[in-house]
């Protein structure tokens, strides 16, 4: 009914940020307030383009290191394969400050996989090669660069990796499905998957996680030149599962890449999804949908590395939360490096809080090291479905439960639509109805 400025529990994390400048472009707090939603964000296209006349002061020749929201530059974040470089997190570190570290003990330790922790089934059309890769065998680790403790312990302990390869020019209509089913909430699994796609190929990979386990899984995707690749990662775990993982992709010249993460079930989920480019002319997107109930912690961190010129990126994550202790986190890093002229980039996160007590953190970090870009924008909003929304819909004859479903379905539909595999879209729609039922709506 009226503006809902961040009340405790709906706080977006960068609310207190003051105006900041990145390469002379103001990217700090400039909030647009829409009744019923709080929104912050801006689009920097106009500013950065006009900024090339130096009137904004030193664009493209910044002396100080560009920073956003007080966070160290993503360009300087350590990545590598040496476990010793990644001490066990205490919880204060920038990358871990939102995460319930204690609950991750089972996946952050330097430990081998337990026997029969998961069952893994792969189904793929004939044209696709399914094999395995020993440690050190190419192209393993050609794309994935462990960026935190979780990723590096999985890399070290994963053993054989699953290797799925789509040859050049192959157009695979049926999705390649990797079904990972956890067998026991106490068993640890370190997993590594390499998805490789040839020049001008077309493929959809569906990674589906069910059952329960202490699961630490890395995925690296090689997107061939001119290829059209979708990776759909479904987290449909049981209530006591823990899942951490890093999904990296390198997107080839003129290729198109889409990563969709759907996180519904599991006690703690923390996924880092990242991509960078091999050359120019590519279009890459990351979408996410999450629905957290009481007791769940669902965290997604996205990193778009514009490391070469004239590429496009788009990130959209949407989450719904219900129940006392439902907790979600989205941290979206975008780094437009000095060499990435002609970049067009946008990222957005929207959360819908359905009941009191739930908390969504949303932190967009945008770093721009060149003024010569097409556009760069970010937005973040957290809306609350409150008694006034409910009253309005019910006053039009719509029963309470249907009213809540209407709002949630409408809100999340945009992401489900991006999946493009009918059977999955339908079963996810069903899952969402069940999520609402669980809370008694």
């Amino acid at each position, binding site marked *: 009914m009226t503006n809902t400025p961040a009340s405790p529990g709906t706080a977006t994390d960068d609310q207190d940020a003051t105006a900041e400048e990145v390469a002379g472009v103001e990217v700090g707090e400039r909030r647009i307030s*829409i009744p019923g*939603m709080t929104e912050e964000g801006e689009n920097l296209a106009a500013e950065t383009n006009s900024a090339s006349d130096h009137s904004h002061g030193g664009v493209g020749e910044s002396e100080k290191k560009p920073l956003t929201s007080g966070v160290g530059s993503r360009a300087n974040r350590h990545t590598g394969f040496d476990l010793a470089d990644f001490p066990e997190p205490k919880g204060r570190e920038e990358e871990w400050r939102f995460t319930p570290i204690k609950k991750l003990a089972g996946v952050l330790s330097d430990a081998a996989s337990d026997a029969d922790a998961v069952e893994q089934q792969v189904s793929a059309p004939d044209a696709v090669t399914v094999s395995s890769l020993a440690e050190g065998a190419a192209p393993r680790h050609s794309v994935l660069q462990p960026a935190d403790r979780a990723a590096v312990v999985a890399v070290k302990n994963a053993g054989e990796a699953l290797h799925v390869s789509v040859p050049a020019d192959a157009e695979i209509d049926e999705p390649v499905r990797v079904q990972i089913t956890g067998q026991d909430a106490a068993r640890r699994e370190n997993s590594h998957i390499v998805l490789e796609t040839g020049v001008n190929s077309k493929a959809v990979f569906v990674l589906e996680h069910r059952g329960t386990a202490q699961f630490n899984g890395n995925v690296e995707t090689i997107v061939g030149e001119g290829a059209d690749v979708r990776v759909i990662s479904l987290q449909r775990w049981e209530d006591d599962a823990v899942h951490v993982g890093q999904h990296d992709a390198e997107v080839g010249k003129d290729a198109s890449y889409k990563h969709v993460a759907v996180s519904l079930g599991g006690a703690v989920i923390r996924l880092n999804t990242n991509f960078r480019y091999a050359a120019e002319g590519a279009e890459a997107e990351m979408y996410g949908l999450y629905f957290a109930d009481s007791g769940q912690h669902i965290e997604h961190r996205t990193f778009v590395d514009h490391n070469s010129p004239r590429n496009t990126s788009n990130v959209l994550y949407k989450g719904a939360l219900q129940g006392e202790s439902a907790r979600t986190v989205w941290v979206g890093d975008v780094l437009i490096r000095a060499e990435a002229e002609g970049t067009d980039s946008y990222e957005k996160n929207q959360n819908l809080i359905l009941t009191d007590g739930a908390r969504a953190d949303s932190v967009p970090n945008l770093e721009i090291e060149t003024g010569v870009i097409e556009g760069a924008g970010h937005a973040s909003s957290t809306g609350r479905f409150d008694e006034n929304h409910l*009253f309005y819909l*019910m006053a*039009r*004859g719509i029963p309470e439960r*249907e009213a809540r479903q209407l709002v949630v379905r*409408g809100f*999340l539909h945009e992401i489900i639509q991006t999946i493009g595999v009918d059977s999955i879209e339908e079963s996810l729609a069903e899952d969402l109805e069940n999520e609402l039922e669980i809370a008694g709506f």
Partner: protein
Amino acid sequence: MSTLEIKDLHVSIETEQGSKEILKGVSLTINSGEIHAIMGPNGSGKSTLASTIAGHPRYEVTSGSITLDGEDVLAMSVDERARAGVFLAMQYPVEVPGVTMTNFLRTAKTAIDGEAPKLRTWSKEVREAMEQLKIDADFANRNVNEGFSGGEKKRVEILQLELFKPRFAVLDETDSGLDIDALRVVSEGVNRAQETNEMGTMLITHYTRILNYIKPHTVHVFVDGQVAEQGGPELADELEANGYDRFLAAVSA
């Protein structure tokens, strides 16, 4: 012929200082086809009356009754009241994130009628109603009330009034915030609904301006949570000339 009857209604709200009585014994009967204007100064409790009829949870009825053809409205949930044929055009319509107007209108119509409207005729009906109210066609794809101006929100309330065809409508300051063209368009919508559906109407307003377009049968002057006086349309003329002073003086005396 239907009757909406309000008898000796007392309503309180919870405030930080405790419970506060807003409505202090309101009695009012509206029959099908009648238009009752409720006129009163700001803060007199007009919206409280409207919201209580619709069943907003914030308002607590401490005594009195509301019945619709003898049925106890206060025992019904908010959605049941709407399905029974009571419609509230809100003073401040709520923005609903994530739900498009198209989806919302179809869902509500289905709930109210108990069956889904025929797709083809329904789309046409919506389109025509929007045209008549001068609502841009692309509003159908926007989220309910999201980013609509005050005037646009009011038009969309009347759009629903026309599409849902309630037996009784409570219009809470539908006229406020409208320019003269919008006021005419919106008034025409109310008059159409009135004529086609034999609707009973409670027209809540602060100003007499809208009464140039919608002719009330009865005018109730509402002061301090009560009906201070009722009469014919001429009572509105007196308010136009002299304001609420006479009634306010009576209350504070």
